[in-house]
């Protein structure tokens, strides 16, 4: 099994490309979906095998090096930080392909979605800033098909422009940081994976600039305040499932945890108050704005902003409990947010609207859809029995040990998010229909394939909530390392 790991790893990275091309070539939509679903399920199987194989080896991490001509090599890693994420990513891809509404998953869009998944896998598997930057930049190509069509109308054109503005800003920051590192390191940047780089020898100014640029790139991709405006707008006007996929995997957060903080521990320590303040602002600001939304898609956008803020608080505190809670929170909220997005997409396919002011009274018409929406909602408000409960518990305990007052702001954001979700459910599914034309006729409840996809995600959330220690153990080393990096730098500074 262990000898086959590199092979499985390579297949995992390549299979989505293959299924994307095959699905894109299909002329018939149904066939394209079957091909994409088979590819996604096969990828899920591979991810499962890889993760089981990795944990069976009981090694802290695995490195895969792909030598290229000219003494250049690409470095991949498999460790407790990314192994669960690879599995979650594959599961989410499969659930979106299987459970997404057909109207939003034409062959070209399926191809774009699978390419997006493949590039996200590449980013999550990389141990190399260059490789990560490649994924970070290339993601913008498939997302062209998933963001609003600029030819559609004025609003779509505006959203497409803002999306590009923020994403190109992030990419420019990333490329500038790489250029600075490349100028200082010379060819060494191509030889060793970024995890082996020693940037301590650089001048403090250079370090500060590179660090700041990497932070900006991560914040832009995560959609953190003040670089968040693209996210709710793109979710509203673009392909909901794909943009939710892009945002909820939080590759920007991964860049922080994988590269930025380990490479610049002292700067991370110095910037901790600033980053924590920014994260808290995002958490509360996103929560407040989510409360004001009437469109379910925009609401999800601001919830992601708020959740990302909460995660960043946990990461920057440098506390082992908070870091463990953050990593669990990452897994749980990614799955729950995607589940919610799936249900919203299904709702829109049936009623043509995501506006809470126009909907209402749907629970009698579509009881399964309502129940699944509510259960995903419960998974985001930390009800015992879902992953969010242990995640928030650990996060709050860790945060309070580090800084009691900050915790209060974080709890306020969590409470506001819970109120937002329950309010959205009540307004959308309960009460009387507000615009009867939207809910008249025979609305179909969840289709079998939609139910399978949704139930699989729910089962994962509930199993993770009932047995969270399995996940915590799987991520323990990563959490300790994240907390340790910042502690070490604090000691070094003293």
């Amino acid at each position: 099994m262990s000898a086959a790991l590199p092979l499985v790893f390579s297949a995992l990275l390549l299979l989505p490309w293959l299924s994307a091309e095959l699905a894109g070539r299909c002329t018939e939509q149904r066939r394209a979906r079957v091909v994409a679903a088979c590819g996604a399920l096969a990828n899920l199987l591979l991810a499962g095998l890889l993760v089981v194989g990795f944990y069976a080896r009981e090694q802290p991490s695995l490195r895969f090096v792909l030598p290229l001509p000219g003494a250049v090599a690409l470095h991949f890693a498999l460790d407790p930080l990314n192994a669960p994420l690879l599995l979650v990513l594959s599961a989410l891809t499969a659930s979106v392909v299987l459970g997404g509404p057909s109207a939003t998953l034409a062959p070209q869009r399926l191809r774009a979605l699978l390419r997006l998944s493949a590039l996200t896998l590449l980013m999550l598997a990389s141990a190399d800033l260059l490789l990560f930057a490649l994924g970070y930049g290339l993601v913008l190509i498939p997302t062209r098909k998933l963001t609003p069509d600029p030819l559609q109308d004025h609003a779509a054109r505006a959203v497409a422009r803002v999306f590009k503005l923020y994403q190109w800003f992030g990419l420019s920051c990333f490329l500038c940081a790489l250029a600075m590192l490349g100028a200082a390191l010379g060819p060494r940047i191509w030889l060793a994976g970024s995890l082996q780089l020693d940037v301590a020898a650089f001048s403090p100014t250079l370090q500060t600039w590179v660090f700041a640029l990497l932070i900006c790139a991560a914040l832009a991709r995560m959609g953190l305040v003040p670089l968040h405006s693209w996210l709710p707008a793109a979710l509203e006007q673009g392909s909901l499932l794909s943009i939710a996929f892009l945002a909820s995997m939080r590759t920007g957060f991964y860049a922080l945890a994988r590269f930025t903080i380990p490479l610049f521990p002292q700067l991370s320590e110095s910037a901790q108050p600033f980053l924590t303040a920014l994260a808290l602002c995002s958490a509360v600001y996103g929560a407040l704005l989510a409360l004001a939304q009437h469109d379910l898609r925009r609401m999800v956008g601001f919830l992601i902003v708020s959740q990302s803020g909460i995660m960043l608080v946990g990461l920057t505190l440098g506390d082992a409990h908070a870091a463990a809670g953050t990593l669990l929170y990452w897994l749980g909220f990614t799955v729950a947010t995607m589940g919610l997005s799936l249900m919203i997409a299904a709702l829109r396919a049936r009623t043509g609207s995501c506006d809470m002011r126009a909907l209402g009274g749907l629970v009698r018409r579509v009881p399964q859809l309502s129940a699944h929406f509510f259960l995903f909602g419960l998974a985001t408000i930390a009800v015992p029995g879902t992953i969010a409960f242990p995640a928030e518990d650990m996060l709050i305990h860790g945060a309070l040990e580090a800084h009691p007052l900050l915790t209060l702001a974080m709890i306020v954001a969590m409470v506001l998010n819970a109120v937002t979700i329950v309010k959205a459910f009540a307004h959308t599914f309960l009460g009387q229909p507000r615009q009867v034309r939207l809910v008249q006729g025979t609305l179909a409840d969840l289709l079998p394939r939609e139910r399978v996809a949704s139930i699989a995600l729910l089962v994962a959330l509930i199993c993770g909530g009932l047995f969270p220690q399995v996940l915590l153990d799987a991520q323990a080393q990563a959490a300790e390392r994240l907390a340790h990096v910042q502690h070490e730098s604090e000691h070094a500074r003293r």
Partner: protein
Amino acid sequence: MSPIAFIALAAPLFPALAFFVIGASLLFGAGGQHVVGSERGDRRELTFVRLTSLTFTAAVTCSLTTCIWFLAHADAPIHVALGDWFGTHGYGFEIDFLIDSLSAPMMATVAILCALIGRFSATYLIREPGQPRFYLLLCLFATGMLLLVMAGSLDLLIAGWELVGISSMLLIAFFHERTFPVRNALRAFVIYRSCDIGLLAGTVLMHHYFHSAGFAAVFGPEHWTRSTSSFDAVGATFTCLCLLFAAMGKSALFPLGSWLPRAMEGPTPSSAIFYGALSVHAGAYLLLRVHPLLDAAPVARVVVVALGLVTALHGTLVARVQSDVKSQLAYATTTQVGVIFVELGLGLPRLALLHLIGHAFVRTLQLLRAPNAMQEALVLRAHAQRTGLPANAPHPSWLSPFLYQLALERFHLDTIWERGVARPLLSLSRALDALEQKWFALLTRRGEEQAPSPPLHHPPALSNGKAAQ
């Protein structure tokens, strides 16, 4: 593990199991597609009733056995630690239960009342479309409440507390096709959640000041009303005040009690068990559980007494001017809960426990009889005419017109909540949203004509969704 501990631990397992069975059958099965009144629908209804009856019978047996055993032996508390549910180095969420002379009678109370309500609802909610949902939520509530009273630590108590809150909110919105129950459920949830901040903060403060949230670890193995441990007064005060804030929400203390009469929108059996008997007393139970800590915090005790007095006064005044029986009973409940808090603050925990249990049973009976109130009022009136006694109690002379008006307006608590909390919060979020829209317009350089979120823009509705799926 001793046999009695094993029996006690089985009590919450039965309703939890029933919850999973009913939930799975609703989620995976053909759920709501059975027509109410059809043979198949009736059969399914009967199955749920039987399952729930069986479950609660088992839970009552376990709880009563535990309670009787404690009364007979009056032994030291049984502390059952099942280990950590989850955790990392230095912190673990302990699954530990504390069975003592506080939790054992509460277990019996919870199990008996849940079983009674389950039996009563079998007839009361017969052929009601939401009956399976009612039983599902009743089982969830019973699990949560039993966890809450049996919890050996604040950590585990939170889990039960949250389950009680969610099931309570969903039962208020039981008649979900109507607007008001949904709105009232949302309000109750907002208050619950806001006050949960206090419970979370209190738990974390307990960890911070006393290095554990376990009751046995912090208070020692003695009887629940006394502790040989010494507490830091500042830590005890802050912790108790946070927990009191949590209790204010759940027990509808002044000024956060406006949700309680609104919660009566749910079916009568759920009103009886939640807002007459158990859920409304969860806050009082929380303070009973941390009573040794409250003893060490005189400032917190003064606040508890003051809040209890104000709540009792408010409740009794408002109850006297209510025109519907359920609202009257709701305010009568807050009066009694206020008195229980006064007893707690005065250092009379045994009296408070006795009062709590007695009140829970009496109020459940009253609320279950509430639908017959009109009929009984007619009988009373006829009796009064025969005997010459006044049928209605006269207004007390000391109730001045000002107080009368104030009571009619329920002391303007709804308005204060609306204007002081809900509206400013929503205004702030809308102002930020407007700012966000302006920023977006600025980025797109198109100004107002190209707002990113045009209101109510819908593509044509798909009648059956087939085309889109």
